[in-house]
C-alpha cells in the first residue's frame, strides 16, 4: 500500500512537470525564454516517471532494472548540450554580429570564428636525437 502511494506520487509529479514544460513552451514569449521550459521542467518530469517505473519494478514486480538509470543519465547529460546548440542556432539566425558585445580575447566569439587551440601556445618539445 505504501509502495503504491509512493509510485503514484512520483507518477503524478512527473506528469504535472511534463505538462508544465510543454505548456511553458507555448506560454513563454522569446526563444531564449522558451529554452527554459523543456530543458528543465520536461527533463524533471521524465525523471519522475523513470523513478516511478524503477520503483514499480523494484517494489511490485520484485526485480531491479537499471535501464531507467541509463535513460535518466542520458537525458540529464544531453539536455544542456541540446539547449546550448539551440541557443547558438538562435543567436546566429536572429541576432546580428554587431549586436553582440566584444569578446575580450584575441579572437572573436566561437560562433563566428574558430578559436585557436589554446590561448597560450606551448613551445614544441625538443625531439630526441636532434642537434640543439
Amino acid at each position, binding site marked *: 500500500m505504501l509502495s*503504491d*502511494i509512493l*509510485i*503514484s506520487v512520483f*507518477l*503524478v509529479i*512527473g*506528469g*504535472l512537470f*511534463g*505538462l508544465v*514544460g*510543454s*505548456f511553458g*513552451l*507555448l506560454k513563454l514569449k522569446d*526563444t531564449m525564454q*522558451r*529554452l527554459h*521550459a*523543456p530543458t528543465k521542467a*520536461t*527533463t524533471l*518530469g*521524465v525523471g519522475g*516517471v*523513470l523513478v*516511478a*517505473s524503477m520503483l*514499480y*519494478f523494484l517494489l*511490485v*514486480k520484485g526485480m531491479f*532494472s537499471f*535501464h*531507467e538509470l*541509463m*535513460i535518466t543519465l*542520458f*537525458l540529464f547529460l*544531453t539536455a544542456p*548540450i*541540446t539547449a546550448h*546548440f*539551440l541557443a*547558438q*542556432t*538562435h543567436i*546566429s*539566425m*536572429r541576432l546580428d554580429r554587431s549586436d553582440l558585445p566584444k569578446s575580450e580575447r584575441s579572437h572573436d566569439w566561437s*560562433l563566428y570564428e574558430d578559436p585557436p587551440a589554446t590561448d597560450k601556445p606551448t613551445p614544441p618539445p625538443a625531439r630526441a636525437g636532434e642537434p640543439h
Partner: protein
Amino acid sequence: MITYALIFAMGCFGLGLLMNLWLIIHGPGRADRVLALDTMVINMIALLILYGTLEGTGVYYEAAMLIAMVGFVSTVAYCRFVLRGDIIE
C-alpha cells in the same frame, strides 16, 4: 491506484505532445521548431516508459533508449547544419 496515476501521467504527456505539435506548426522560427521537436522526443520517451509500466514488461526500455539517442543526434545535426552549413566537417 497505480493504474489511475499511470493514466493521468499518460494524459499529461499526451496533452504536452499536442502542445508541441502546435508549436511546430505555428513556431515563429526554425530554432523554436527544433526545440518543439526535441521536447516531443522527450515526451515520447516518457509515454513509452509509462506504457511499459502499464503492461508490466521491460521490453520498451530499449525502444526508449534508442529514441533518446536518435532524438539527440538529430537535434545536434540540425543545429550544426544551420550553424555551419555542414554536419560532418
